[in-house]
Protein backbone atom coordinates (compact mmCIF):
# COMPACT_ATOMS: atom_id res chain seq x y z
CA UNK A 1 0.00 0.00 0.00
CA UNK A 2 1.51 3.24 -1.12
CA UNK A 3 0.77 6.41 0.80
CA UNK A 4 -0.95 9.19 -1.08
CA UNK A 5 -1.60 12.16 1.18
CA UNK A 6 0.88 14.92 1.15
CA UNK A 7 3.33 15.07 4.00
CA UNK A 8 2.80 11.69 5.65
CA UNK A 9 5.51 9.91 3.77
CA UNK A 10 8.95 10.32 2.29
CA UNK A 11 10.61 8.80 -0.77
CA UNK A 12 13.99 7.12 -1.02
CA UNK A 13 15.75 5.57 -4.01
CA UNK A 14 16.81 2.13 -2.78
CA UNK A 15 16.02 -0.37 -0.05
CA UNK A 16 19.15 0.09 2.16
CA UNK A 17 17.99 3.69 2.60
CA UNK A 18 14.67 2.44 3.83
CA UNK A 19 16.64 0.40 6.36
CA UNK A 20 18.14 3.61 7.68
CA UNK A 21 14.91 5.58 7.71
CA UNK A 22 13.00 2.76 9.38
CA UNK A 23 15.59 2.55 12.12
CA UNK A 24 15.67 6.31 12.59
CA UNK A 25 11.95 7.06 12.45
CA UNK A 26 10.43 3.81 13.66
CA UNK A 27 6.85 3.39 12.44
CA UNK A 28 6.08 7.09 12.48
CA UNK A 29 6.53 7.55 8.75
CA UNK A 30 5.95 5.40 5.72
CA UNK A 31 8.68 5.12 3.14
CA UNK A 32 8.15 5.01 -0.61
CA UNK A 33 11.04 3.17 -2.26
CA UNK A 34 11.46 4.15 -5.90
CA UNK A 35 13.26 0.94 -6.87
CA UNK A 36 11.22 -1.52 -4.89
CA UNK A 37 12.21 -5.16 -4.50
CA UNK A 38 11.13 -6.70 -7.77
CA UNK A 39 12.33 -4.02 -10.09
CA UNK A 40 15.67 -4.21 -11.70
CA UNK A 41 17.46 -0.87 -11.58
CA UNK A 42 18.35 -1.62 -15.18
CA UNK A 43 14.87 -1.79 -16.68
CA UNK A 44 13.07 0.15 -14.00
CA UNK A 45 10.56 2.70 -15.10
CA UNK A 46 8.21 4.19 -12.53
CA UNK A 47 4.44 3.71 -12.58
CA UNK A 48 2.02 6.63 -12.26
CA UNK A 49 1.25 5.80 -8.64
CA UNK A 50 4.91 5.91 -7.75
CA UNK A 51 5.44 9.24 -9.41
CA UNK A 52 2.38 10.54 -7.64
CA UNK A 53 3.76 9.31 -4.31
CA UNK A 54 7.07 10.91 -5.11
CA UNK A 55 5.39 14.19 -5.99
CA UNK A 56 3.52 14.27 -2.71
CA UNK A 57 6.49 13.26 -0.55
CA UNK A 58 7.64 15.41 2.31
CA UNK A 59 11.18 14.93 1.12
CA UNK A 60 13.01 12.79 -1.40
CA UNK A 61 16.31 11.33 -0.18
CA UNK A 62 18.43 10.35 -3.12
CA UNK A 63 21.33 7.99 -2.54
CA UNK A 64 23.46 10.13 -4.81
CA UNK A 65 24.57 8.93 -8.15
CA UNK A 66 22.90 5.65 -9.11
CA UNK A 67 21.95 5.29 -12.77
CA UNK A 68 18.24 5.52 -12.17
CA UNK A 69 18.56 8.89 -10.47
CA UNK A 70 20.78 10.21 -13.20
CA UNK A 71 18.31 9.12 -15.85
CA UNK A 72 15.20 10.58 -14.31
CA UNK A 73 16.29 13.38 -11.94
CA UNK A 74 16.08 16.25 -14.43
CA UNK A 75 12.58 15.28 -15.38
CA UNK A 76 11.51 14.68 -11.79
CA UNK A 77 12.66 18.19 -10.89
CA UNK A 78 11.01 19.59 -13.98
CA UNK A 79 7.68 17.98 -13.10
CA UNK A 80 7.86 18.69 -9.34
CA UNK A 81 9.49 22.06 -8.89
CA UNK A 82 8.39 22.19 -5.23
CA UNK A 83 9.71 18.79 -4.18
CA UNK A 84 12.43 18.90 -1.54
CA UNK A 85 15.37 16.73 -2.60
CA UNK A 86 18.26 15.81 -0.37
CA UNK A 87 21.41 14.02 -1.47
CA UNK A 88 22.56 11.59 1.23
CA UNK A 89 25.98 11.01 -0.27
CA UNK A 90 27.37 14.49 0.30
CA UNK A 91 30.63 14.67 2.16
CA UNK A 92 31.80 11.29 1.00
CA UNK A 93 35.19 11.18 -0.65
CA UNK A 94 33.97 9.84 -3.97
CA UNK A 95 35.80 7.31 -6.04
CA UNK A 96 35.75 8.33 -9.66
CA UNK A 97 36.45 6.60 -12.92
CA UNK A 98 39.24 7.94 -15.07
CA UNK A 99 38.71 11.32 -16.68
CA UNK A 100 38.80 11.31 -20.42
CA UNK A 101 39.37 13.97 -23.01
CA UNK A 102 37.17 14.52 -26.03
CA UNK A 103 38.62 17.00 -28.43
CA UNK A 104 38.51 20.25 -26.53
CA UNK A 105 36.59 19.29 -23.42
CA UNK A 106 37.14 16.97 -20.51
CA UNK A 107 34.62 14.59 -18.99
CA UNK A 108 34.95 14.11 -15.25
CA UNK A 109 35.06 10.43 -14.54
CA UNK A 110 31.77 9.02 -13.32
CA UNK A 111 31.26 8.91 -9.59
CA UNK A 112 30.98 5.37 -8.27
CA UNK A 113 27.53 5.37 -6.63
CA UNK A 114 27.81 2.35 -4.31
CA UNK A 115 28.35 4.32 -1.09
CA UNK A 116 25.95 2.13 0.93
CA UNK A 117 27.87 -1.13 0.52
CA UNK A 118 30.76 -0.15 2.78
CA UNK A 119 30.12 0.31 6.51
CA UNK A 120 32.53 3.23 6.56
CA UNK A 121 30.79 5.28 3.91
CA UNK A 122 27.42 4.13 5.21
CA UNK A 123 28.20 6.04 8.40
CA UNK A 124 28.29 9.24 6.36
CA UNK A 125 25.06 8.31 4.60
CA UNK A 126 23.52 7.82 8.04
CA UNK A 127 24.61 11.28 9.16
CA UNK A 128 23.24 12.89 6.00
CA UNK A 129 19.98 11.01 6.31
CA UNK A 130 19.63 11.98 9.96
CA UNK A 131 20.20 15.64 9.16
CA UNK A 132 17.70 15.60 6.32
CA UNK A 133 15.04 13.90 8.45
CA UNK A 134 15.52 16.32 11.32
CA UNK A 135 15.08 19.19 8.92
CA UNK A 136 11.86 17.73 7.58
CA UNK A 137 10.52 16.48 10.90
CA UNK A 138 11.84 18.93 13.49
CA UNK A 139 9.29 17.77 16.05
CA UNK A 140 10.84 14.33 16.20
CA UNK A 141 14.40 15.59 16.48
CA UNK A 142 14.99 13.99 19.86
CA UNK A 143 13.94 10.50 18.93
CA UNK A 144 15.77 10.68 15.63
CA UNK A 145 18.99 11.63 17.41
CA UNK A 146 18.54 8.82 19.87
CA UNK A 147 17.92 6.25 17.16
CA UNK A 148 20.86 7.65 15.25
CA UNK A 149 23.23 6.84 18.10
CA UNK A 150 21.97 3.29 18.35
CA UNK A 151 22.20 2.69 14.61
CA UNK A 152 25.61 4.25 14.45
CA UNK A 153 26.71 1.73 17.04
CA UNK A 154 25.49 -1.16 14.92
CA UNK A 155 27.23 0.11 11.80
CA UNK A 156 30.43 0.84 13.68
CA UNK A 157 30.47 -2.69 15.07
CA UNK A 158 30.25 -4.09 11.58
CA UNK A 159 32.97 -1.67 10.51
CA UNK A 160 35.27 -3.02 13.24
CA UNK A 161 34.67 -6.60 12.16
CA UNK A 162 35.56 -5.74 8.58
CA UNK A 163 38.75 -3.97 9.62
CA UNK A 164 39.90 -6.96 11.64
CA UNK A 165 38.96 -9.75 9.27
CA UNK A 166 40.01 -8.12 6.02
CA UNK A 167 43.45 -7.44 7.38
CA UNK A 168 44.01 -11.16 7.96
CA UNK A 169 42.98 -12.39 4.48
CA UNK A 170 45.70 -14.21 2.58
CA UNK A 171 44.38 -13.10 -0.79
CA UNK A 172 43.13 -9.61 -1.31
CA UNK A 173 41.65 -9.93 -4.79
CA UNK A 174 38.16 -11.04 -5.71
CA UNK A 175 36.14 -11.03 -8.95
CA UNK A 176 32.66 -9.60 -9.08
CA UNK A 177 30.38 -9.05 -12.04
CA UNK A 178 29.22 -5.53 -11.21
CA UNK A 179 31.64 -3.49 -9.07
CA UNK A 180 29.26 -2.82 -6.20
CA UNK A 181 31.98 -2.93 -3.52
CA UNK A 182 34.39 -0.27 -4.72
CA UNK A 183 34.18 1.69 -1.44
CA UNK A 184 34.31 -1.45 0.63
CA UNK A 185 37.44 -2.63 -1.19
CA UNK A 186 39.14 0.72 -0.78
CA UNK A 187 38.20 1.10 2.86
CA UNK A 188 39.37 -2.36 3.91
CA UNK A 189 42.35 -2.90 1.67
CA UNK A 190 40.83 -5.38 -0.77
CA UNK A 191 41.19 -5.54 -4.53
CA UNK A 192 37.88 -5.64 -6.35
CA UNK A 193 38.14 -6.69 -10.00
CA UNK A 194 34.92 -6.36 -11.98
CA UNK A 195 33.94 -8.58 -14.85
CA UNK A 196 32.02 -5.69 -16.28
CA UNK A 197 34.59 -3.58 -18.02
CA UNK A 198 34.11 0.16 -17.58
CA UNK A 199 30.42 -0.51 -17.07
CA UNK A 200 30.01 -2.63 -20.17
CA UNK A 201 29.61 -6.32 -20.78
CA UNK A 202 33.09 -7.79 -21.07
CA UNK A 203 34.65 -8.10 -24.50
CA UNK A 204 36.46 -11.25 -25.64
CA UNK A 205 39.81 -9.67 -24.79
CA UNK A 206 38.68 -8.74 -21.31
CA UNK A 207 37.31 -12.23 -20.63
CA UNK A 208 40.62 -13.72 -21.77
CA UNK A 209 42.53 -11.35 -19.51
CA UNK A 210 40.32 -12.18 -16.53
CA UNK A 211 40.88 -15.89 -17.10
CA UNK A 212 44.64 -15.42 -17.47
CA UNK A 213 44.92 -13.13 -14.41
CA UNK A 214 42.57 -15.24 -12.36
CA UNK A 215 45.13 -17.97 -12.17
CA UNK A 216 47.92 -15.58 -11.17
CA UNK A 217 45.83 -13.80 -8.56
CA UNK A 218 44.66 -17.11 -7.17
CA UNK A 219 40.99 -16.12 -7.42
CA UNK A 220 38.85 -18.53 -5.35
CA UNK A 221 35.35 -17.25 -6.04
CA UNK A 222 33.38 -14.98 -8.30
CA UNK A 223 30.66 -12.81 -6.81
CA UNK A 224 27.53 -11.86 -8.69
CA UNK A 225 24.44 -9.88 -7.83
CA UNK A 226 20.94 -11.10 -8.35
CA UNK A 227 20.08 -8.34 -10.75
CA UNK A 228 22.85 -9.04 -13.25
CA UNK A 229 23.39 -11.67 -15.90
CA UNK A 230 25.23 -14.67 -14.49
CA UNK A 231 26.51 -16.05 -17.76
CA UNK A 232 29.70 -14.08 -18.09
CA UNK A 233 30.62 -14.91 -14.52
CA UNK A 234 29.84 -18.57 -15.10
CA UNK A 235 32.06 -18.75 -18.19
CA UNK A 236 35.02 -17.40 -16.25
CA UNK A 237 34.18 -19.46 -13.17
CA UNK A 238 34.17 -22.65 -15.21
CA UNK A 239 37.48 -21.79 -16.88
CA UNK A 240 39.02 -21.04 -13.45
CA UNK A 241 37.12 -23.88 -11.83
CA UNK A 242 35.88 -21.76 -8.91
CA UNK A 243 32.34 -21.31 -7.49
CA UNK A 244 29.98 -18.42 -8.22
CA UNK A 245 28.70 -16.78 -5.04
CA UNK A 246 25.60 -14.63 -4.94
CA UNK A 247 25.51 -11.37 -2.99
CA UNK A 248 22.73 -8.85 -2.61
CA UNK A 249 23.91 -5.31 -1.98
CA UNK A 250 20.39 -3.94 -2.48
CA UNK A 251 18.96 -5.90 0.44
CA UNK A 252 16.63 -4.25 2.90
CA UNK A 253 18.28 -6.13 5.75
CA UNK A 254 21.45 -4.12 5.44
CA UNK A 255 23.11 -5.32 8.63
CA UNK A 256 22.66 -9.04 8.12
CA UNK A 257 23.60 -8.73 4.46
CA UNK A 258 26.88 -7.05 5.42
CA UNK A 259 27.70 -9.76 7.97
CA UNK A 260 26.87 -12.44 5.40
CA UNK A 261 29.13 -10.79 2.92
CA UNK A 262 32.00 -10.85 5.35
CA UNK A 263 31.56 -14.58 5.86
CA UNK A 264 31.49 -15.10 2.10
CA UNK A 265 34.62 -13.01 1.65
CA UNK A 266 36.32 -14.99 4.34
CA UNK A 267 35.50 -18.22 2.56
CA UNK A 268 36.75 -16.90 -0.75
CA UNK A 269 39.88 -15.07 0.32
CA UNK A 270 41.22 -17.09 3.20
Amino acid sequence: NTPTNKGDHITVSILPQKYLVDKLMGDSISVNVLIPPGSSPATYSPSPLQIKSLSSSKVYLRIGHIGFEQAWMDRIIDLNPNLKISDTSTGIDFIRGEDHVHGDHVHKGGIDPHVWTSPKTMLQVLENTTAALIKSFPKQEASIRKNNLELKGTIQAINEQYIQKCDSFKNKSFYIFHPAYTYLAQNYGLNQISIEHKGKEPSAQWIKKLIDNGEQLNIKAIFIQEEFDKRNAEIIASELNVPVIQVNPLSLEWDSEMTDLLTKLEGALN
Partner: protein
Amino acid sequence: MQDIFSIFQYSFFTNALIAGLLTSILAGIAGTYIVSRKIVFISGGITHASFGGIGLAYFLGLNPFLGAAVFAILSAVGIEWTTNKANIREDSAIAILWSLGMAIGIIFVFLTPGYAPNLMSFLFGNILTVSTTDILYMLVLCIIVCICIVVFYRPILYTAFDAEYAKTTHLNTTLIKYITAIFVALTIVFSIRIAGIILVLSLFTIPQATASIFTHDFKKMIFLSIGIGFIGISTGLIGSYYFNLPSGAIIIFTLILIWALIKAGEKIRNLINADNP
Protein backbone atom coordinates in the same frame (compact mmCIF):
# COMPACT_ATOMS: atom_id res chain seq x y z
CA MET B 1 -13.42 6.86 -7.76
CA GLN B 2 -12.47 10.16 -6.23
CA ASP B 3 -8.97 8.85 -6.06
CA ILE B 4 -8.85 8.47 -9.83
CA PHE B 5 -9.71 12.09 -10.37
CA SER B 6 -7.17 13.33 -7.87
CA ILE B 7 -4.41 12.19 -10.22
CA PHE B 8 -5.46 14.86 -12.71
CA GLN B 9 -4.15 17.50 -10.32
CA TYR B 10 -0.59 16.36 -10.90
CA SER B 11 1.16 18.06 -13.73
CA PHE B 12 3.08 14.93 -14.69
CA PHE B 13 -0.23 13.28 -15.42
CA THR B 14 -1.81 16.10 -17.38
CA ASN B 15 1.45 16.47 -19.29
CA ALA B 16 1.25 12.77 -20.11
CA LEU B 17 -2.30 13.17 -21.37
CA ILE B 18 -1.38 16.10 -23.59
CA ALA B 19 1.62 14.22 -24.91
CA GLY B 20 -0.69 11.28 -25.58
CA LEU B 21 -3.03 13.46 -27.62
CA LEU B 22 -0.19 14.92 -29.68
CA THR B 23 1.35 11.52 -30.18
CA SER B 24 -1.89 10.03 -31.36
CA ILE B 25 -2.25 12.80 -33.93
CA LEU B 26 1.30 12.33 -35.18
CA ALA B 27 1.12 8.54 -35.13
CA GLY B 28 -2.33 8.59 -36.71
CA ILE B 29 -1.03 10.46 -39.75
CA ALA B 30 2.40 8.88 -40.09
CA GLY B 31 1.13 5.42 -39.16
CA THR B 32 -1.61 5.44 -41.79
CA TYR B 33 1.01 6.33 -44.39
CA ILE B 34 3.32 3.59 -43.17
CA VAL B 35 0.66 0.92 -42.94
CA SER B 36 -0.80 1.78 -46.34
CA ARG B 37 2.56 1.64 -48.04
CA LYS B 38 3.13 -1.69 -46.27
CA ILE B 39 6.31 -0.39 -44.72
CA VAL B 40 5.42 -0.87 -41.07
CA PHE B 41 8.81 -2.35 -40.91
CA ILE B 42 10.25 1.06 -41.76
CA SER B 43 9.23 2.44 -38.40
CA GLY B 44 11.06 -0.42 -36.75
CA GLY B 45 14.09 0.36 -38.86
CA ILE B 46 14.06 4.05 -38.09
CA THR B 47 13.56 3.61 -34.36
CA HIS B 48 16.39 1.15 -34.09
CA ALA B 49 18.67 3.13 -36.35
CA SER B 50 18.08 6.15 -34.12
CA PHE B 51 19.75 4.23 -31.34
CA GLY B 52 22.98 4.80 -33.23
CA GLY B 53 22.43 8.52 -32.82
CA ILE B 54 21.78 8.12 -29.13
CA GLY B 55 25.03 6.21 -28.73
CA LEU B 56 27.01 8.74 -30.72
CA ALA B 57 25.51 11.62 -28.77
CA TYR B 58 26.54 9.95 -25.52
CA PHE B 59 30.01 9.53 -26.80
CA LEU B 60 30.30 13.15 -27.88
CA GLY B 61 28.48 14.39 -24.81
CA LEU B 62 25.62 15.88 -26.82
CA ASN B 63 21.87 15.73 -26.32
CA PRO B 64 20.89 12.13 -27.10
CA PHE B 65 17.56 13.27 -28.43
CA LEU B 66 19.29 15.37 -31.06
CA GLY B 67 21.45 12.40 -32.01
CA ALA B 68 18.37 10.23 -32.33
CA ALA B 69 16.64 12.78 -34.55
CA VAL B 70 19.64 13.13 -36.86
CA PHE B 71 20.08 9.38 -37.21
CA ALA B 72 16.38 8.82 -37.72
CA ILE B 73 16.25 11.37 -40.52
CA LEU B 74 19.43 10.03 -42.07
CA SER B 75 18.14 6.49 -41.99
CA ALA B 76 14.73 7.44 -43.39
CA VAL B 77 16.37 9.33 -46.23
CA GLY B 78 18.88 6.51 -46.60
CA ILE B 79 16.13 3.94 -46.99
CA GLU B 80 14.47 5.98 -49.72
CA TRP B 81 17.78 6.66 -51.38
CA THR B 82 19.01 3.09 -51.43
CA THR B 83 15.74 1.80 -52.83
CA ASN B 84 15.51 4.49 -55.49
CA LYS B 85 19.08 4.62 -56.63
CA ALA B 86 20.99 1.58 -55.52
CA ASN B 87 18.48 -0.97 -56.74
CA ILE B 88 18.16 -2.58 -53.33
CA ARG B 89 14.95 -4.00 -52.01
CA GLU B 90 13.30 -1.71 -49.53
CA ASP B 91 13.10 -4.33 -46.80
CA SER B 92 16.77 -5.18 -47.17
CA ALA B 93 17.66 -1.50 -46.97
CA ILE B 94 15.61 -1.16 -43.81
CA ALA B 95 17.16 -4.22 -42.22
CA ILE B 96 20.65 -3.00 -43.02
CA LEU B 97 20.09 0.47 -41.62
CA TRP B 98 18.32 -1.01 -38.60
CA SER B 99 21.30 -3.20 -37.82
CA LEU B 100 23.86 -0.56 -38.66
CA GLY B 101 22.19 1.96 -36.36
CA MET B 102 21.98 -0.44 -33.47
CA ALA B 103 25.55 -1.61 -33.97
CA ILE B 104 26.85 1.96 -34.06
CA GLY B 105 24.86 2.74 -30.94
CA ILE B 106 26.22 -0.24 -29.06
CA ILE B 107 29.80 0.48 -30.05
CA PHE B 108 29.63 4.13 -29.04
CA VAL B 109 27.96 3.29 -25.78
CA PHE B 110 30.77 0.80 -25.27
CA LEU B 111 33.39 3.39 -26.06
CA THR B 112 31.87 5.87 -23.62
CA PRO B 113 33.31 5.02 -20.22
CA GLY B 114 30.88 4.51 -17.39
CA TYR B 115 27.27 3.44 -17.31
CA ALA B 116 24.69 4.85 -19.70
CA PRO B 117 21.71 5.26 -17.44
CA ASN B 118 19.41 6.96 -19.95
CA LEU B 119 19.75 4.09 -22.34
CA MET B 120 16.93 2.16 -20.77
CA SER B 121 14.64 5.13 -20.88
CA PHE B 122 15.23 5.25 -24.63
CA LEU B 123 14.54 1.57 -25.05
CA PHE B 124 11.37 1.52 -23.01
CA GLY B 125 10.37 5.18 -22.87
CA ASN B 126 8.13 6.73 -20.28
CA ILE B 127 5.15 8.89 -20.99
CA LEU B 128 5.03 9.95 -17.33
CA THR B 129 8.20 11.98 -17.47
CA VAL B 130 7.34 14.10 -20.49
CA SER B 131 8.42 17.63 -19.76
CA THR B 132 6.69 20.79 -20.84
CA THR B 133 9.52 21.46 -23.28
CA ASP B 134 8.94 18.07 -24.87
CA ILE B 135 5.31 18.96 -25.30
CA LEU B 136 6.17 22.26 -26.92
CA TYR B 137 8.41 20.56 -29.45
CA MET B 138 5.76 17.98 -30.17
CA LEU B 139 3.15 20.67 -30.63
CA VAL B 140 5.30 22.43 -33.21
CA LEU B 141 5.93 19.21 -35.12
CA CYS B 142 2.27 18.31 -34.90
CA ILE B 143 1.21 21.62 -36.41
CA ILE B 144 3.75 21.32 -39.23
CA VAL B 145 2.73 17.75 -40.01
CA CYS B 146 -0.97 18.63 -39.99
CA ILE B 147 -0.43 21.54 -42.34
CA CYS B 148 1.65 19.35 -44.66
CA ILE B 149 -0.85 16.55 -44.81
CA VAL B 150 -3.69 18.97 -45.49
CA VAL B 151 -1.82 20.84 -48.21
CA PHE B 152 -0.07 17.86 -49.82
CA TYR B 153 -2.70 15.24 -49.14
CA ARG B 154 -3.15 14.13 -52.73
CA PRO B 155 0.48 14.12 -53.88
CA ILE B 156 1.36 12.07 -50.82
CA LEU B 157 -1.54 9.67 -51.27
CA TYR B 158 -0.93 9.12 -54.97
CA THR B 159 2.79 8.66 -54.56
CA ALA B 160 2.18 6.12 -51.85
CA PHE B 161 -0.38 4.25 -53.94
CA ASP B 162 1.39 4.11 -57.29
CA ALA B 163 4.67 5.98 -57.42
CA GLU B 164 5.43 4.90 -60.97
CA TYR B 165 2.18 6.30 -62.30
CA ALA B 166 2.50 9.44 -60.18
CA LYS B 167 5.85 10.01 -61.82
CA THR B 168 4.27 10.00 -65.26
CA THR B 169 2.00 12.83 -64.13
CA HIS B 170 5.15 14.92 -63.57
CA LEU B 171 4.85 14.70 -59.82
CA ASN B 172 8.24 14.95 -58.17
CA THR B 173 7.75 11.64 -56.41
CA THR B 174 11.34 11.52 -55.23
CA LEU B 175 10.99 14.80 -53.37
CA ILE B 176 7.68 13.73 -51.90
CA LYS B 177 9.12 10.44 -50.72
CA TYR B 178 12.06 12.15 -49.08
CA ILE B 179 9.92 14.72 -47.33
CA THR B 180 7.44 12.17 -46.06
CA ALA B 181 10.33 10.00 -44.94
CA ILE B 182 11.78 12.87 -42.92
CA PHE B 183 8.47 13.60 -41.26
CA VAL B 184 7.93 9.95 -40.46
CA ALA B 185 11.39 9.88 -38.91
CA LEU B 186 10.73 12.96 -36.78
CA THR B 187 7.36 11.63 -35.70
CA ILE B 188 8.98 8.40 -34.63
CA VAL B 189 11.73 10.12 -32.69
CA PHE B 190 9.24 12.22 -30.79
CA SER B 191 7.19 9.15 -30.04
CA ILE B 192 10.23 7.36 -28.65
CA ARG B 193 9.96 9.59 -25.57
CA ILE B 194 6.49 8.19 -25.04
CA ALA B 195 6.81 4.54 -25.82
CA GLY B 196 10.50 3.77 -26.22
CA ILE B 197 12.27 2.24 -29.16
CA ILE B 198 10.73 -1.14 -28.53
CA LEU B 199 7.08 -0.16 -28.23
CA VAL B 200 6.80 2.85 -30.52
CA LEU B 201 5.79 0.63 -33.39
CA SER B 202 2.54 -0.22 -31.65
CA LEU B 203 1.35 3.36 -31.68
CA PHE B 204 1.86 3.46 -35.43
CA THR B 205 0.08 0.27 -36.37
CA ILE B 206 -2.54 -0.91 -33.92
CA PRO B 207 -4.88 2.08 -34.25
CA GLN B 208 -4.57 1.70 -38.03
CA ALA B 209 -5.34 -2.00 -37.88
CA THR B 210 -8.44 -1.13 -35.88
CA ALA B 211 -9.44 1.67 -38.23
CA SER B 212 -9.07 -0.57 -41.28
CA ILE B 213 -11.92 -2.70 -39.97
CA PHE B 214 -14.22 0.23 -40.65
CA THR B 215 -12.82 1.94 -43.69
CA HIS B 216 -10.69 1.55 -46.76
CA ASP B 217 -10.30 5.24 -47.30
CA PHE B 218 -6.97 6.88 -46.53
CA LYS B 219 -8.43 10.07 -45.09
CA LYS B 220 -10.99 8.38 -42.88
CA MET B 221 -8.31 6.00 -41.71
CA ILE B 222 -6.20 8.91 -40.47
CA PHE B 223 -9.06 10.41 -38.48
CA LEU B 224 -10.16 7.10 -37.05
CA SER B 225 -6.61 6.15 -36.10
CA ILE B 226 -6.12 9.42 -34.27
CA GLY B 227 -9.33 8.90 -32.35
CA ILE B 228 -8.65 5.29 -31.51
CA GLY B 229 -5.07 6.11 -30.59
CA PHE B 230 -6.08 8.83 -28.18
CA ILE B 231 -8.79 6.74 -26.55
CA GLY B 232 -6.27 3.95 -26.11
CA ILE B 233 -3.52 6.15 -24.70
CA SER B 234 -5.74 8.03 -22.25
CA THR B 235 -7.62 4.96 -21.06
CA GLY B 236 -4.35 3.11 -20.76
CA LEU B 237 -2.81 5.91 -18.73
CA ILE B 238 -5.68 6.05 -16.28
CA GLY B 239 -5.79 2.26 -16.12
CA SER B 240 -2.11 2.03 -15.39
CA TYR B 241 -2.58 4.46 -12.51
CA TYR B 242 -5.54 2.54 -11.19
CA PHE B 243 -3.86 -0.87 -11.34
CA ASN B 244 -0.42 0.53 -10.53
CA LEU B 245 1.28 -1.04 -13.53
CA PRO B 246 3.78 0.38 -16.04
CA SER B 247 2.02 2.90 -18.29
CA GLY B 248 3.69 2.02 -21.58
CA ALA B 249 2.70 -1.62 -21.42
CA ILE B 250 -0.83 -0.86 -20.28
CA ILE B 251 -1.34 1.64 -23.09
CA ILE B 252 -0.32 -1.01 -25.62
CA PHE B 253 -2.64 -3.49 -23.93
CA THR B 254 -5.52 -1.07 -24.14
CA LEU B 255 -4.88 -0.44 -27.83
CA ILE B 256 -4.78 -4.16 -28.50
CA LEU B 257 -7.91 -4.67 -26.42
CA ILE B 258 -9.82 -2.06 -28.42
CA TRP B 259 -8.73 -3.76 -31.61
CA ALA B 260 -9.71 -7.20 -30.35
CA LEU B 261 -13.13 -6.04 -29.16
CA ILE B 262 -13.95 -4.32 -32.42
CA LYS B 263 -12.66 -7.25 -34.45
CA ALA B 264 -14.78 -9.63 -32.40
CA GLY B 265 -17.77 -7.33 -32.83
CA GLU B 266 -17.28 -7.40 -36.58
CA LYS B 267 -17.10 -11.21 -36.59
CA ILE B 268 -20.30 -11.47 -34.61
CA ARG B 269 -22.06 -8.99 -36.88
CA ASN B 270 -20.96 -11.01 -39.91
CA LEU B 271 -22.30 -14.18 -38.35
CA ILE B 272 -25.63 -12.54 -37.67
CA ASN B 273 -25.74 -11.12 -41.18
CA ALA B 274 -24.97 -14.50 -42.68
CA ASP B 275 -27.96 -15.96 -40.88
CA ASN B 276 -30.35 -13.25 -42.07
CA PRO B 277 -29.22 -12.41 -45.55
